[in-house]
């Protein structure tokens, strides 16, 4: 149960750049060390096993300079400052001595595995790659980890002083990077205790010992208060080095012409004119010929592999751009590409509508949905097109290949993921093995209560490669080791991510090109056009709703159907894309991974984002997932499936209120009822399909943590009491009741509330619509319950930004596809929100969970949950509802600028 370890190997210290004599502290806080091994199998459906050790803190002798390695991707959420400040707070580090260093992609040395049972508030968040920064979970997953780690270091220093002074450790206190002995008045700085700290008696502190010295809330310096924001000054002076700003001796810049259609291949190219441009040095295909032996290219089902493309490599960006314009390329669409080349988003909208007009796959039901007896029937269809994330920094990566190794600098949300896939692409030429290695990764995430399935799955993979199961995993692990040895990734700070930079296709492009030019650093620079035309788009979705209202105006029957192009189709190939030999394995892997189900349907992750977790109390419910084929790459965008599900559901609630002649807010509260914590029994009674996702609970359990039995609430079950609270709060702050019926003609309030990424947000928008149908957003009020607020200022910033991001998408966002290629090019035809379109006034309120709610959670508080994504999903429905209240049309599709004028 060691939780802190000390590193003294000299070479290692040198590699870290902290110099000899420094004390480097790592963390061994793993789920196993906290839970004990016996519970591993019980928990493995909600937590992954994680990696063996954690983040490093280096303390330099004499100077006392402290380096904190930050392992989460920084893309504007301020997380690297926030997590480091949590650690420094518990450690009692002198912040003026702290510098941050972004950790390389390195699961072994820098990954902090999670989840953590939370002393004081034990709950766990499902684990994935430790550095993969998505799902708004950095603080949810690592708040306690960083506290324990920091407190553990302080405890080591206390023990060091106890050793030095021959006193009892209980007489000592750590404060201001010093250990104090009150009785004798002695004190010593951490940097003067390093020799003793390296020697203090083994074993290292246990979890229980660390929990015992955790600070109390009133002792926190930064946590829950104003926190340092270390990168701000470099950002406003232009000194911050983003990946595009990296200079390497002899570096060349590449611009790529890509096949506009997913899964298309390169047929031929004529480089003559491009090579004639001064400064252009090379013109070459990005993917090696017959990549994976079968010419696999980027597209549907092919994961993060780049689209087929030809690179123009030049001495500077302008020359590369000029050369690219002169390049002539012909594409071979082949059988898969040809199918995608017919993709037309307008026609597809009709297909989605037809698919949601008939029965789909039931994912939740209760009672018998019957509209015949209803006093009134309300129905509506909703549509949300593909959307692109468009971070301000277009994708970019710098790679150099030397001595059979790759060194890469890139803005990435998934450093380990990028490392893994770059390595796989460079080192595994066999297409069947490629697919098997991917499947083995996924098989480890198969539900543990389906051990039999997992066993059969592994056996079938082993049989395919004609080896036994043990050898299969040994081969896989050997490959992973080689990947870690050969591919080094330095994550740079991201100029925005929003889900786009979870996908490392652009990093793979740089790695492929670098291999062709050993010793020459190659920078692959995407333009805005590249970014808009070759994203991993948010799913296009069609939904249909039907409700039968009873005599009191509330629904007695509710039917919802949702069809969306699941991002699983990008990562789990549709059957026809997969060699027959691995088709069965893939079907199993897909279904095993997050209950992904079969192709044409959505995964549990997407279904749990506003579909199966529909919060209204209705006697008869039927929720279905309707089929949707995929013809371009889909991925993640801030708020993901909540984007379309919350738009449909929260707008339809307002439509029902309108049909019932009721006030929108009062009706919404009645729909939710008195509020409840969803328990397993409820989910079973309502036949909710998803059980193994972190968005839904399994039974609460008691587990030994640090040798004591502690209650743990795995996952964060939907809690509609918290949804009610944010609605009531935002109604109060916006003056909803007082303004009712008093607003002038052409002005109205709209409300929407939604739970996502474990947090609860309610938003009220005040809009004006003039007689020329021109929209002004006068004011916005939002209430957020994200559990404990660790960094109030950055949480506010995320709320402000998230609301603006949602406004941008709702009013202006649309990606269309013709002949398989994306139509839009740049910010002129894919417009985004500008300063004059933001609400004139915006107020954000933290709604603390009520004492009654807090009592439901084990421990003494509700732990922190997501803030990056939750504000985005409520914007479109709140705006649509406000427009109706202002006398405008009911808008049931995005973007709204097709119906009203937005200047």
């Amino acid at each position, binding site marked *: 149960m060691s939780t802190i370890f000390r590193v003294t190997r000299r070479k290692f210290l040198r590699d870290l750049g902290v110099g000899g004599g420094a004390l480097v502290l790592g963390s061994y806080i793993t789920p196993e060390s906290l839970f004990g091994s016996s519970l591993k199998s019980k928990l493995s459906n909600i937590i992954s096993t994680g990696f063996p050790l954690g983040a490093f803190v280096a303390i330099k002798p004499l100077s006392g300079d402290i380096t904190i390695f930050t392992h989460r991707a920084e*893309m*504007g959420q*301020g997380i690297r400052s926030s997590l480091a400040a949590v650690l420094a707070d518990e450690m009692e580090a002198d912040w003026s001595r702290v510098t941050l260093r972004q950790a390389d992609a390195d699961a072994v040395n820098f990954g902090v595995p999670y989840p953590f049972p939370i002393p004081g508030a034990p709950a766990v968040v499902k684990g994935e790659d430790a550095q993969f920064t998505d799902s708004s979970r950095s603080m949810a997953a690592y708040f306690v980890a960083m506290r324990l780690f920091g407190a553990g270091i302080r405890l080591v220093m206390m023990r060091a002083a106890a050793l030095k002074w021959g006193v009892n450790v209980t007489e000592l206190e750590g404060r201001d990077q010093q250990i104090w002995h009150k009785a004798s008045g002695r004190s010593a700085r951490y940097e003067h205790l390093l020799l003793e700290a390296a020697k203090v008696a083994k074993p290292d502190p246990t979890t229980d010992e660390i929990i015992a010295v955790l600070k109390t809330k009133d002792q926190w310096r930064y946590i829950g208060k104003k926190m340092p*924001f270390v*990168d*701000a*000054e*470099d*950002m*406003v*002076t*232009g*000194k*911050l*080095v*983003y990946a*595009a*700003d990296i*200079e390497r001796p002899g570096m060349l*810049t590449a611009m790529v012409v890509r096949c506009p259609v997913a899964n298309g291949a390169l047929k031929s190219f004529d480089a003559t004119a491009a090579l004639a441009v*001064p*400064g252009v040095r090379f013109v070459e295909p990005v993917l090696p010929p017959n990549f994976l032996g079968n010419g696999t290219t980027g597209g549907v089902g092919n994961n993060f592999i780049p689209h087929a493309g030809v690179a123009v490599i030049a001495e*500077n*960006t*302008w*020359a590369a751009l*000029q050369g690219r314009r002169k390049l002539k390329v012909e594409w071979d669409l082949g059988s898969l590409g040809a199918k995608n080349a017919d993709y037309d988003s307008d026609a597809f909208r009709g297909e989605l509508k037809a698919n949601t007009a008939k029965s789909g796959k039931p994912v939740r039901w209760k009672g018998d949905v019957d509209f015949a007896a209803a006093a009134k029937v309300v129905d509506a269809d909703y549509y949300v097109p593909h959307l692109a994330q*468009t*971070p*301000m*920094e*277009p994708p970019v990566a710098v790679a150099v290949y030397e001595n059979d190794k790759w060194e890469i600098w890139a803005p990435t949300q998934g450093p380990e993921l990028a490392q893994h896939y770059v390595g796989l692409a460079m080192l595994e030429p066999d297409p069947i093995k490629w697919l098997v290695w991917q499947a083995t990764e996924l098989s480890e995430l198969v539900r543990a209560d389906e051990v039999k399935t997992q066993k059969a799955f592994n056996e079938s993979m082993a049989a395919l490669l004609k080896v036994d199961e043990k050898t299969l995993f040994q081969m896989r692990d050997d490959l992973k080791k080689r990947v870690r040895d050969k591919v080094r990734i330095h994550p740079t*700070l*991201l*100029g*925005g*991510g929003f889900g786009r930079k979870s996908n490392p296709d652009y990093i793979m492009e740089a790695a492929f090109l670098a291999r062709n030019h050993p010793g020459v650093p190659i920078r692959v620079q995407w*333009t*805005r056009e590249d970014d808009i035309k070759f994203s991993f788009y948010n799913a296009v979705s069609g939904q249909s709703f039907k409700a039968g209202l009873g005599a009191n105006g509330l629904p007695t029957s509710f039917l919802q159907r949702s069809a969306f192009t699941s991002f699983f189709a990008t990562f789990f190939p549709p059957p026809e894309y997969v060699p027959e030999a691995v088709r069965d394995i893939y079907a199993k892997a897909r279904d095993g991974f997050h209950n992904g189900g079969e192709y044409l349907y959505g995964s549990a992750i997407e279904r749990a984002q506003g579909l199966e977790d529909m919060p209204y109390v209705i006697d008869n419910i039927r929720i279905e997932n309707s089929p949707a084929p995929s013809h371009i790459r889909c991925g993640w965008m801030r708020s993901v499936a909540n984007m379309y599900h919350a738009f449909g559901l929260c707008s339809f609630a307002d439509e029902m209120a309108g049909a019932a002649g009721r006030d929108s807010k009062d009706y919404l509260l009645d729909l939710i009822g008195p509020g409840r914590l969803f328990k397993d029994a409820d989910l079973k009674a309502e036949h909710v399909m998803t059980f193994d996702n972190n968005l839904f609970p399994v039974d609460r359990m008691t587990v030994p943590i640090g040798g004591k039995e502690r209650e743990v609430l795995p996952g964060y079950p939907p809690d509609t009491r918290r949804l009610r609270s944010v609605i009531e709060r935002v109604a109060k702050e916006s003056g909803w009741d007082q303004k009712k019926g008093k607003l002038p003609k052409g002005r109205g309030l709209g409300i929407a509330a939604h739970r996502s990424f474990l947090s609860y947000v309610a938003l009220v928008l005040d809009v004006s619509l003039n007689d020329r149908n021109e929209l002004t957003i006068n004011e916005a009020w939002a209430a957020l319950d994200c559990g404990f607020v660790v960094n109030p*200022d950055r949480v506010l*910033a*995320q709320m*402000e*930004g*998230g*609301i*603006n*991001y949602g406004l*941008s998408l709702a009013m202006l966002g649309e990606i269309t596809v013709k002949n398989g290629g994306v139509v839009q090019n*740049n*910010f*002129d035809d894919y417009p985004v*929100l*500008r*300063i*004059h379109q*933001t*609400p*004139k006034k*915006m107020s954000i309120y933290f709604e603390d969970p009520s004492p009654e709610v807090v009592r439901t959670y084990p421990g003494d508080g509700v732990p922190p949950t997501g803030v990056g994504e939750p504000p985005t999903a409520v914007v479109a429905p709140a705006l649509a509802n406000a427009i109706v209240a202002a006398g405008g049309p009911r808008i049931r599709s995005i973007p709204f600028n097709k119906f009203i004028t937005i200047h």
Partner: protein
Amino acid sequence: MSVFQLNVNGKVHSVDIDGNMPLLWAIRDVLGLKGTKFGCGVAQCGACTVHLDGVAARSCSVDVGVAQLSKITTIEGLSYDGSHPCQKAWVDLGVPQCGFCQPGQIMTASALLKANPHPTDDDIDHAMRGNICRCGTYPRIREAIHKAAGDRT
């Protein structure tokens, strides 16, 4: 290739480049000043904003031949220590999120304040609408400009 004399941040640089190269790439790739960012290449986003004789301009759409007629200021030349009132206000109010667009925002804002020392919200919206921030920091940008103008504490 032709030789151009570019006066950037008070220093004259002689550069031998393609005459069609936009100022942005001359600044970034040739002079190595990386604070000016590439966001769209078509004067839609403002990430590449610099001052030409004190007036905000999108460097991705200015030819070097035109630029050499003016005194060019980039974010590196706005102040040498982050002490420009805009930079200070930006930090004080925690405006940046990812930070990528902020050099451009600050170059536009500082040019606005020079021309209009006490802008209203509408003045700000008008001047700043050419600068996109995908993180959505607009409310704080407005506040920071008022603060830099000395109109807010």
